[in-house]
């Protein structure tokens, strides 16, 4: 293979056996012992003997179709396929004999008799297993000629925006079909026809785009030829080097191999050794990275005195010094606490750490908060209170040992697809499933996955449902008494037991509140308590409520009561929305906590930081995001440094947020695009995409994974360097020569990160799970094993308190919000990729009954109005939602989903109650007033940006010869 072409990962042909029993075999004269159940092929591979193969892959069950891997076994007649033959004690195997050479050559001759001979111009040239095998078997001649029956003129399907299907290259190994079934669990592909007519097809002879295919890329990854091939590879050719990094989309934190040509990404391939994703990916991480080189990327710093003025491109120095002078001016005029900063769950730990350090040390205030405020802050509070640590308890691998799963307020197949595939695999193996969700999410009824119970909870009553489940467990004698006695605080437990056992908490009593049939709830509770290893996976459908923190505690209660903590296959598992939600929280982004969740008022802790940082820190917590907005409107908060977050689109009650921003005097936005918040900004600092960064992300399983720079920052400065420059300009020195030094500082100051360093991560194979310190030098895959972090687990009373957001005569429907697979969060990234082919606008899901009552039909424009505001969306009439409930996504700014959501929040953490808003819906003919206003404002802001561009062109035309930007990937 050419040295310039990336080497494929080693493939052992069949999955590893988990057996502990060893079997002795002799392969080609070498004695070895392997676990029982290992295939002959894998045993040989482990001995360094590569038996030719085409249909085998170690992420798929053995199939035995290609017949290249035939071997000879002494005492056995014939030529068994090594992939489907398990080793047996004393087996003597020969993998290379003249007869085998003959047979393999015969098989290869057949393959090539129906394959185009266009290797040199084939997109897979240099990365083709068929080509490799033809070489290995020494095929020299195709005696059949090429005038026989063939598929050389089959037409290609180019419908998928990211990959092409060229059946003329297909060898019908079924690896794609099996990957779709076994790895992804979508079952979108099949083989149609019989015998020679066998062809891979999506759905029932649909195009890939029109089929159930979710474009996860598993089939493309599995294809040994160029039949399924990334269009970027077709356009650009094979990569010349590769770098392992971590995906910047959801909280699964998949490891990817970025395959590169110089500074250009050719493709992103899920890394086989990635411990979060185990070689799998979803449409976003695998394909939707073209935004990183989209023409909308902002690459020059800009400033303006007022948001009605056009932007002015300036040098980095000018931008930084302007920003610093403005912040100083504001502080001088309005006081130290009149400014603050926001960290982002999309940025690295190092960047996030620096921003909170900037705010605390350079701004001299604790007015720092993070977007986790609006998603998982209740998780932090709830799990810290009950278990002692603000984090999920397991690894993703742990799900393969679970027997009963609760998915609550999460939609993994849309929002955490790679984890969803793992979970589906476990469910296909027979684990039981309980879904608690107001909507019929995919898991309720998916191919080969059916929920044993779907509890369609009325939005806002999660606490009541879980307390009723606890009631069943407590009153039916299903509590794991031994676990509770040993591991939990007795008085709190007794109080909890008395509380949940009250008749008012019974499923029957709660039925009218929750809308969940008592019999189903009892069944689900019994199943969870008695079905073996029970695990709970939850998302923002749990946290984003007025009782978000209470529900998190109810989840912890349930896990403790049933003994489902501290081992494989169990646990409390928050599914984090963004890539670094866990990390941004860990890094001290909340106003009241220093890194490692230590309260700012703790003198010992604060002193440690003061010593290290050489400043005096304020002992009082600063403002949370909503407080900042309120303070801005009331006139006491005037300056904001906002890194990588779009509060205008993502925070609730948009009009309130916009009003707050419009009231400030200096808003500094650091982002890769001119997002909705940047339209209110005075300083714009061009940010870097994850491809341009060195650092770490921490995923939902506390896994700190390396993010590696595959290309230089397009704006000339890394995000961490910008923060340092701003700090230096403010007079507080920050001097790091590399992000690894920032991590060293984090480790120095944070007990749970004590052992973490870039070096350690590399040694651990690319990631490590915190806590990682002297007690756990290699990290902690599963938490709370022998005791809880807080010592004894603490049961908390979870009294149901109805939300203020209730359906009324004026607002009879409940709006809840969520995500879709192809889009991500505010959509800034995915909207700038061909993912819009799957989802080009946010729709309002409404039950046919509610639609009919209002004369609404599929596709009609519908006004959704709450006490906060009104927006208009097109209707999707569907039974996925129950009567009385409407649902939408918030991926497009013009949708204004958050114009409708209100300022109602979680009682403990101020996490917004996005998931419940009382609304009315009615048929309309045009956009809402807000949408019209937004559209005008947006147009003005874009034209102010346009004017900037004209300035720049004039300036650059004078200064230097025009240069073409070498940054556009062909995807755009």
């Amino acid at each position, binding site marked *: 293979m050419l040295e310039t072409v990336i080497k494929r990962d080693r493939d052992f042909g069949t999955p590893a056996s988990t057996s502990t029993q060893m079997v002795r075999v002799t392969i080609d004269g070498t004695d070895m012992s392997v676990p029982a159940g290992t295939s002959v092929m894998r045993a040989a591979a482990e001995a360094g003997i590569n038996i030719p193969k085409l249909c085998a892959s170690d992420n798929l069950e053995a*199939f035995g*179709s290609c017949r290249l891997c035939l071997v000879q076994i002494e005492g056995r007649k014939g030529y068994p396929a090594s992939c*489907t033959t398990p080793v047996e004690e004393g087996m003597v195997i020969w993998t290379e004999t003249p007869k085998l050479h*003959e047979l393999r050559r015969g098989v290869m001759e057949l393959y090539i008799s129906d394959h185009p001979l266009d290797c040199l111009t084939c997109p897979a040239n240099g990365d083709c297993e068929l080509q490799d095998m033809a070489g290995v078997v020494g095929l020299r001649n195709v005696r059949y000629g090429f005038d*026989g*029956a063939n598929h050389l003129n089959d037409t290609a399907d180019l419908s998928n925006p990211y990959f092409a299907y060229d059946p003329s290259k297909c060898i019908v190994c079924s690896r794609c079909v099996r990957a779709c079934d076994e790895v992804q669990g979508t079952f979108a592909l099949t083989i149609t026809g019989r*015998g020679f007519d066998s062809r891979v097809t999506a759905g029932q002879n649909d195009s890939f785009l029109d089929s159930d295919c979710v474009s996860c890329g598993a089939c493309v990854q599995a294809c040994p030829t160029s039949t399924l091939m990334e269009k970027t590879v077709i356009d650009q050719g094979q990569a010349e080097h590769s770098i392992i990094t971590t995906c910047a989309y959801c909280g699964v934190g998949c490891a990817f191999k970025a395959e590169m040509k110089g500074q250009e990404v050719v493709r992103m391939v899920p890394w086989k050794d990635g411990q979060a994703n185990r070689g799998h990916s979803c449409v976003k991480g695998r394909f939707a990275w073209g935004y990183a080189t989209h023409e909308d990327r902002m690459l020059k710093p800009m400033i303006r005195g007022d948001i009605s003025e056009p932007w002015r491109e300036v040098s980095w120095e000018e931008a930084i010094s302007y920003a610093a002078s403005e912040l100083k001016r504001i502080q001088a005029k309005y006081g130290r606490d009149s400014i603050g900063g926001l960290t982002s769950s999309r940025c690295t730990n190092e960047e996030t750490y620096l921003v909170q350090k900037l705010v605390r040390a350079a701004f001299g205030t604790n007015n720092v908060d993070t977007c986790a405020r609006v998603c998982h802050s209740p998780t932090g509070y709830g799990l810290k209170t009950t278990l002692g640590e603000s984090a999920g308890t397991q690894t993703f691998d742990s799900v393969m040992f679970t027997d009963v799963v609760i998915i609550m307020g999460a939609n993994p197949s849309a929002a955490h697809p790679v984890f969803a595939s793992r979970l589906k695999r476990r469910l296909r193996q027979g684990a039981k499933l309980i879904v608690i969700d107001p909507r019929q999410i995919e898991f309720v009824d998916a191919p080969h996955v059916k929920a044993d119970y779907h509890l369609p909870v009325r939005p806002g009553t999660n606490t009541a449902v879980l307390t009723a489940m606890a009631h069943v467990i407590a009153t039916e004698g299903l509590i794991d008494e031994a676990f509770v006695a040993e591991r939990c605080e007795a008085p709190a437990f007794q109080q909890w037991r008395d509380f949940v056992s009250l008749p008012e908490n019974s499923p029957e009593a709660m039925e009218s509140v929750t809308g969940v049939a008592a019999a189903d709830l009892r069944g689900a509770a019994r199943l969870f308590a008695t079905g073996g290893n029970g695990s709970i996976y939850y998302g923002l459908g749990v946290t984003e409520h007025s009782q978000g923190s209470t529900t998190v505690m109810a989840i912890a209660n349930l896990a403790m009561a049933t003994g489902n903590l501290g081992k494989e296959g169990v646990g409390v598992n928050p599914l984090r929305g963004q890539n670094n939600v866990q990390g941004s929280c860990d890094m001290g982004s909340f106003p009241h906590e220093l890194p490692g969740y230590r309260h700012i008022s703790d003198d010992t802790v604060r002193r440690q930081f003061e010593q290290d940082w050489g400043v005096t820190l304020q002992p009082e917590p600063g403002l949370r995001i909503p407080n900042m907005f309120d303070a801005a409107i009331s006139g006491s908060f005037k300056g904001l440094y906002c890194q990588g977050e779009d509060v205008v689109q993502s925070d609730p009650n948009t009009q309130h947020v916009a009003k707050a921003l419009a009231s400030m005097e200096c808003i500094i936005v650091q982002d890769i695009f001119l997002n909705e918040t940047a339209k209110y900004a005075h300083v714009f600092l061009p940010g870097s995409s994850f491809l341009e960064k060195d650092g770490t992300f921490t995923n939902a399983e506390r896994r700190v994974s390396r993010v590696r720079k595959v290309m230089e920052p397009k704006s000339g400065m890394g995000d961490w360097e910008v923060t340092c420059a701003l700090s230096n300009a403010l007079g507080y020195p920050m001097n790091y020569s590399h992000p690894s030094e920032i991590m060293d500082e984090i480790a120095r100051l944070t007990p749970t990160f004590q052992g973490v360093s870039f070096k350690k991560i590399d040694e651990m194979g690319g990631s490590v799970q915190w806590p990682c310190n002297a007690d756990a030098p290699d990290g902690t895959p599963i938490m709370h094993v022998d005791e809880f972090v807080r010592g004894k687990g603490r049961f908390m009373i979870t009294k149901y308190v109805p939300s203020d957001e209730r359906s009324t005569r004026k607002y009879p429907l409940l709006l809840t919000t969520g995500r879709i697979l192809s889009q991500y969060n505010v959509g800034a990234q995915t909207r700038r990729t061909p993912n819009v082919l799957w989802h080009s606008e946010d729709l309002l899901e409404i039950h046919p009954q509610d639609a009919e009552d209002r004369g609404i039909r599929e596709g009609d424009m519908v006004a959704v109005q709450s006490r906060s505001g009104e927006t208009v969306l097109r209707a999707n009439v569907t039974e996925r939602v129950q009567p009385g409930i409407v649902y939408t996504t918030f991926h497009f700014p013009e949708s204004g989903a958050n114009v409708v959501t209100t300022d109602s929040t979680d009682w403990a953490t101020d996490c917004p109650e996005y998931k419940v808003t009382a609304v009315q819906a009615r048929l309309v003919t045009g956009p809402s007033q807000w949408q019209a206003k937004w559209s005008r404002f947006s147009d003005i802001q874009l034209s102010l940006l346009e004017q900037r561009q004209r300035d720049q062109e004039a300036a650059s035309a004078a200064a230097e010869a025009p240069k073409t930007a070498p940054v556009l990937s062909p995807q755009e």
Partner: protein
Amino acid sequence: MDAAITLFVPKDSAAIAVGADDVASAIAREAASRGLSVDIVRNGSRGLLWLETLVEVETPQGRVAYGPVEPADVPGLFDAGWLQGKPHTLAHGLTEEIPYLKNQERLTFARVGITDPLSLTDYRAHEGFKGLEAALAMAPAAIVDQVVDSGLRGRGGAAFPTGIKWKTVLAAEADQKYIVCNADEGDSGTFSDRMLMEGDPYALIEGMAIAGLAVQATYGYIYVRSEYPYAIAALEAAIACARDAGWLGASIRGSGRAFDLEVRCAAGAYICGEETSLLESLEGKRALVRAKPPLPAVKGLFGKPTVINNVISLASVPIILARGAAFYRDFGMGRSRGTLPFQLAGNLRHGGLVEKAFGLTLRELLYDFGGGSASGKPLRAVQVGGPLGAYLPESQWGVPLDYEAYVGISAMVGHGGLVAFDETVDMAKMAEYAMEFCAIESCGKCTPCRIGAVRGAEVIDKIRHNEQREAQVVLLRDLCDTMLAGSLCALGGMTPYPVLSALEHFPEDFGLPAHQPASTQAA
């Protein structure tokens, strides 16, 4: 009024195909018009297919045979006094005395053609359920031992010892086990499964129930070829009757031991008869061949230990249990014990079913039973064992029909079907057809079969048209070797048998010199 006279008109598909239903109604009509009282029993076929529609009249001397009867013959038969068994040009005397039948050894087919297929009374009167009753009194391992001792081997074609298979399933630990009957009889020239299912469905049901008791399986499926509507109807009716009578269900005849079963209509492809693809198909999937191991006996239907046997294997079990293993084992030769219902088809005067102990020769079947060619021209080649069986030239017609003896000449007994050809046959064309058959019926999973069969037909076509003949013959032999050694299942793996045997024994049909040295036969 005189007691009604009983006439037997087969309800077998082969009889119906030549007008048995019309004959039955003509008889009823004619009897009524003559004021005669007759009982028409729709029995199975005796297997003397050239005599269908074969009508039998019950007389004090025994059943007298008339055939082939056409509806138009009926008045004349009445006129001739057939109700009294009187002579007629279509009369053949007592059925039992017809040499074709008299010279058979009918164990598995003992009742076929004699009883009313759906009459439980008839069935019991002819030794029915004796085997099951015996099994109910035995421990599972003892039943398995009986089957092992009988020497019964899989009649589907692979000839794997049935008892050994059962032993594996019995030893497998599982919460559920299954009995699956492979009734997807797709071999060209075969029909014994169909005749048995249509003519004596209870025998199969009884055999499956015994298998269930033997391996502790409580449920069975009969996977019947979709082209066999009469067999499906007969089985479904028989299962319902057996269940009503307590021979199936949660507690067979109050024994506390459970077995029940159902019929599944096959998916309509030859490959569905391959046992592992049959299981896939039963599970509702595309009928792709599964790699073995795991054996179905360990991980079969829905992943559970499964006995999967051919109709004739299972239907031979009741008599083994009823009369003991030794009785059955006493028939046959070598390691081929018991009897095999041979099916005579193709260019023969007397096509039909001949159940005989192993050990007779093809020549006996062709001439003593088959009566030589139907065309009157000399017979030239016989394909034994279905479309994947070898073509045997006259020189091999004296080899005893015994599994091992046939393996010795690169042929196979298979399911016992034989198709005869006279001297007008073009054996190169037959070889090409063998490849075409494989190409049409291939599931498409493994490469040697999926692509090899298509290339095989193309290569033989080139040979026939003298395009680089010698080189193509070398290529054909290489291809046959790849298919034989490399295919996943018997379809691709055995297609070379008819091809190579044709090439070996009839080289002149390929444009090659006759009597080429027979050195490179398939192993």
